[in-house]
């Protein structure tokens, strides 16, 4: 929650700079964001590689648990596809790219901005932040009506960190490892699935 506020404030700061044309024209024109994305992807990769505990969790997991991130992927993509019918400006492919952020708003919005458009990037940023906030606020009800995997499913990629405490609180300690596993798998898959959807749909 605190993380999303900080990230939003940087976005808003940039927004104010842009609105007021506070920056020199040359800086606004130059497009170095792709290099910043390269740097980010490199760092995200190192982060995944050095995270021994994640690899250990993945190795010790039984086959049944793999069904959890698969449910999140299938459910998210089908859900956004169905709901995109309500939105005349959004194609199914664009909706799926937003949905494939699985709550990982920073990376998904940046990739969608770079590979598609600023507009869809903003939609992805807002949508995936809302997903995290919704999970933090409504998990108790989700668990009550959709079972103990509900918080993990709603949290998506955030189930491994920001929404983990609330998930454990309402689904129980025995679901912590499933939440972390599902979160890790989805986090790793976001930078793979989002560009693939944008390229082929």
């Amino acid at each position, binding site marked *: 929650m605190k993380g999303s506020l900080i*990230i939003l404030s*940087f*976005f808003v*700061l*940039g*927004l104010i700079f*842009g*609105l007021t044309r506070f920056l020199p024209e040359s800086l606004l024109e130059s497009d170095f*964001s792709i290099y*910043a994305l*390269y*740097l*980010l*992807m490199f*760092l995200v*990769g*190192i*982060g995944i*590689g*050095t995270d021994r505990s994640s690899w250990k969790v993945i190795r010790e997991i039984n086959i*049944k648990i793999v069904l*959890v991130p698969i*449910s999140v992927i299938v459910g*998210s*993509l089908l*859900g*956004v*596809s*169905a709901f*995109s019918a309500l*939105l005349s400006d*959004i194609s199914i492919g664009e909706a799926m790219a*937003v949905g494939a952020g699985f709550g990982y708003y*920073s990376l998904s*919005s*940046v*990739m969608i*901005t*770079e590979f598609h458009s*600023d*507009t869809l990037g*903003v*939609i*992805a940023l*807002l*949508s995936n932040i*809302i*997903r995290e906030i*919704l999970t933090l606020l409504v998990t108790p009800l*989700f668990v009550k009506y959709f*079972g*103990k*995997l*509900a918080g993990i*499913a*709603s949290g*998506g990629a955030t189930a491994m960190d920001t929404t983990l405490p609330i998930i454990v609180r309402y689904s129980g300690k025995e679901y912590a490892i499933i939440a972390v596993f599902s979160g890790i798998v989805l986090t790793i898959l976001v*930078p793979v699935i989002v*560009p693939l959807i944008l*390229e082929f749909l």
Partner: protein
Amino acid sequence: MLTDIIIVLAIMILGIGIGLIIGNKPKIIKIIGALTSFSIFLLLFILGIGVGTNDKIINNLHSIGIQALVLTIGAVLGSLICAYFTYNLFFKKK
């Protein structure tokens, strides 16, 4: 665009390889974490500038917010329904 995507994924895989070699060095991991946050802040700041200077987005901010909300509800509801079946079929203790 496909080449860009391949470059991005190749860079990430390179990072994973280097990360595996580095292994468990708390100091380095801390620095990597700080740099990661920094580049995310930078990219979101740049996105903010792009949005602020883009009149098409600014004039449609209201509808963009609604679109984001509708897509979120779709994604969460879809996930919850799938998780419901997965839970009842495979996880619930009988």
